[in-house]
């Protein structure tokens, strides 16, 4: 029960008025950052880092980590209301969140997403509290083949889920192509930049997403006669309570997504990959899988729970090993050094007050975060009552600012417009956009992991079954990929066997 003692000691540190004040400031700033597309957790934390140089390290990390929690919570708000993901990890939330808002159930969708987020965070914090050193060792088992297997699993969990597997694959390949633009880290060469120095940095996934989803959606609504589909979303205590009443039904999705999130956060797969995998796997195993994408609460809970669990769990390898599990964790790691703390395996031993103060604050700030986001929802939902003719231009401007913020580059705004049109056309032609975004996000890393593996194994594919861990993940991925075929063959076989029996009788 050493951990419990330490945790209560941590609560004593975190529960001062000053630290609670920092917590609230951090969460509110985080919500603002989370709502603005383009400005994500890592940028937000990096911008505010210098402000904390004169603070006590514990208060500083409490404030900065709260910015991160705030942005994790709030990424869902614009995804649900406007189909524009405020954060990269809330892309998957748009798939079912936005249809729900169109049905006038935005309040439900937001409550479900925030509660899911909270649950995910809680599971991850419990994991950090009791199992940190043990679990941290698990992260070390991940070399290039293991990473590739995990990415393969994410891709495969998506292929079989679309209506038309061929359109899914085409869309995915487009994403891989876009992901390959820019510097190839493995060979150190430039690819598909055509001698154009603006293309050096590659095509940022956020810009594509803002265009495809945000602008594409506005173009579609314009076609529908300028009628914004969003109905005013009521959120009051009753909606919250009624949604909470429905949530226990999805306990399996909650637990599965939280587990996926923790795993992806620790290994570092990242919150974005976690949210996609959470959604893909929930869809694969849900009894209502055909209704996914039309407004299922489950489709909102699954990605949000996974994203928040992963974002929280990403701090575990940072604290226990000195390895950042996400971009935001990497910035926080830089902060630790500036504050005079040496991250790494000895942090838990040498800086008990800091570590346990932070862990205790994670419990408190997620509770505070849930309360704050739930109470800001009426404010955001009120935006839906503004006529489309007024809100649409505002959204386009916010999108453009978001696209510009990513790299401070004018060209990105043109790209965003281009992808807006592409998004409209692809939607009209009934191509799913999710696989494109997925492969754009993970394509680069999956490719690097694959090629690193091939360098090490000198081209042998046997390495993907070289130990229990990687073998299991790879096999699971292939099973996922061929599941529809296997299920089809099994039914066919049973039917033909059954038919034989009938004819014999």
């Amino acid at each position, binding site marked *: 029960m050493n951990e419990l003692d330490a945790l209560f000691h941590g609560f004593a540190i975190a529960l001062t008025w000053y630290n609670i004040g920092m917590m609230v400031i951090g969460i509110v700033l985080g919500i603002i950052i989370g709502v603005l597309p383009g400005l994500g957790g*890592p940028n937000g934390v*990096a911008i505010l*880092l*210098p402000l904390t*140089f*004169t603070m006590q390290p514990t208060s500083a990390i409490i404030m900065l980590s709260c910015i991160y929690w705030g942005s994790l919570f709030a990424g869902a708000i614009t995804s649900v209301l406007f189909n524009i993901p405020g954060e990269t990890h809330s892309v998957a939330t748009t798939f079912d969140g936005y249809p729900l808002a169109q049905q006038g159930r935005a309040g439900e969708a937001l409550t479900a997403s925030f509660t899911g987020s909270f649950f995910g965070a809680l599971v991850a914090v419990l994991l950090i509290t009791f199992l940190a050193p043990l679990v941290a060792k698990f*992260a*070390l*088992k*991940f*070399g*290039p083949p293991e990473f590739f297997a995990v990415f393969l699993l994410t891709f495969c969990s998506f292929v079989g889920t679309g209506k038309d597997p061929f359109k899914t694959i085409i869309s995915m390949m487009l994403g891989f192509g876009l992901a390959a633009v*820019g*510097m*190839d*880290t*493995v*060979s*150190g*060469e*430039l690819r598909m*930049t055509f001698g154009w*120095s603006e293309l*050096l*940095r*590659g095509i940022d996934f956020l810009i594509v997403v803002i265009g495809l989803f945000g602008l594409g959606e506005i173009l579609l609504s314009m076609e529908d006669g300028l009628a914004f589909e969003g109905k005013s979303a009521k959120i009051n205590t009753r909606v919250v309570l009624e949604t909470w009443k429905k949530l226990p039904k999805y306990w399996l999705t909650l637990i599965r997504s939280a587990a996926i999130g923790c795993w992806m956060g620790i290994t570092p797969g990242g919150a974005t990959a976690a949210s996609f995998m959470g959604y893909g796997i929930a869809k694969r195993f849900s009894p209502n899988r055909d209704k996914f994408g039309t407004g299922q609460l489950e489709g909102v809970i699954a990605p949000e729970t996974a994203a928040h669990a992963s974002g929280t769990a990403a701090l575990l390898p940072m604290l226990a*090993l*000195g*390895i*950042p599990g996400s*971009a935001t964790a*990497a*910035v926080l*790691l*830089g902060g630790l*050094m*500036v504050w*005079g*703390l*040496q*991250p*790494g*395996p*000895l942090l838990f031993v*040498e*800086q008990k007050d800091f570590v346990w103060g932070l862990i205790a604050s994670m419990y408190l700030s997620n509770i505070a975060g849930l309360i704050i986001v739930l109470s800001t929802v009426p404010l955001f939902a009120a935006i839906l009552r503004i006529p489309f003719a007024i809100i649409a231009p505002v959204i386009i401007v916010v999108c453009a600012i978001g696209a510009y913020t990513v*790299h*401070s580059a004018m060209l990105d705004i043109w790209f965003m417009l281009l992808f807006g049109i592409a998004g409209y056309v692809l939607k009209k032609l009934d191509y799913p956009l999710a696989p494109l975004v997925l492969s754009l996000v993970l394509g680069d890393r999956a490719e*690097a992991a694959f090629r*690193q593996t091939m*360098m*090490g194994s*000198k081209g042998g594919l046997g390495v993907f079954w070289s130990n229990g861990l990687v073998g299991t993940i790879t096999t699971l991925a292939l099973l996922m990929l061929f599941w529809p075929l296997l299920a089809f063959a099994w039914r066919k076989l049973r039917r033909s066997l059954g038919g034989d029996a009938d004819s014999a009788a």
Partner: protein
Amino acid sequence: MGLPIYKFFNNVCLRPLSGALLACAIATPALADWEPTKTVEIIVPAGAGGAADQMARTIQGIVVKHQLMKQPIMVINKSGASGAEGIMDVKDAKGDPHKLMAAFSAIYTLPVAVNLPFNWRDLNPVAMIALDEFLLWVNAETPYKTPKEYLAAVKAAPPETFKMGGTGSKREDQIITVALDKVAGTKFIYIPYKSGAEAATQLVGKHIDSNVNNPSENIAQWRAGEVRALCVFSAQHMVYKDKITANQSWADIPTCKESGVDVEYQMLRGFFIPSGTTKDQVAFYVDLLKKVAATPEWKDYLAKQALKDVFLTGPDFVKFLEKDEAFHNKLMNEAGFAHKE
């Protein structure tokens, strides 16, 4: 072990001193004839959280804390294409004295490796503020205690058995690996990772056999006894004598040369501003960086990251750049990393 030292630094040295210095900084007006008229951007051609980024943010913190400049100062990461994005951004900002680029060896290697239309002469050199060291690291559970033993084992095994991990491709880490291969007659498989932090973890997880990380990239794992430092690729021992692990300080690590592996490599950490800027503007930043380098926070930072304390400016800096560039060109060409049409 480290805890009392850091605490001591923080509580006893830094706080009272910084207060005194603050007073000094306010008391003496700036001597340069030019001063920034708007926010100064430090362009970091590397990702957030990496070594170049941490240095830029430390300098930003020092400038703000000691009020060394009237205008605000901001750090911007432009890490696209291994930093080419940031380098080209500063090159294209001709005559803009409000951009300060944090430079490292990418300014020589990128133009050679990917035919980037850039040369450091396209910018105005300000100052070099430190040299970063590189070390040969192996997993602590392996039996190798000296570079000789390790390289003999690599050589005895069939070629391409041992894996060396490092940051990126055709950059400093791979240059050192090729130089090692040449001197020791070995044949490593070089595996490029996204960052030094990743290369550090992969070494602890035994997915690679060694890496050539900077001190700051491996210090956490070293202190925890998970990796072992075999030698440092510099001419002299490092100067930091505080024990970092139970029985070793940075100064205790032998040089590779004295261990019979004649490879030397150090990396500059310097600053440039765009071309078309005036002498006064360069002088302002030289003065600013000098003031930064004189603060106790900076000395503390150098010690923590085990950086070599070197301050070069003016003709000395240019001379260094010319020599360093020729050295890199030679290594890049010998390794076959030059861009082919």
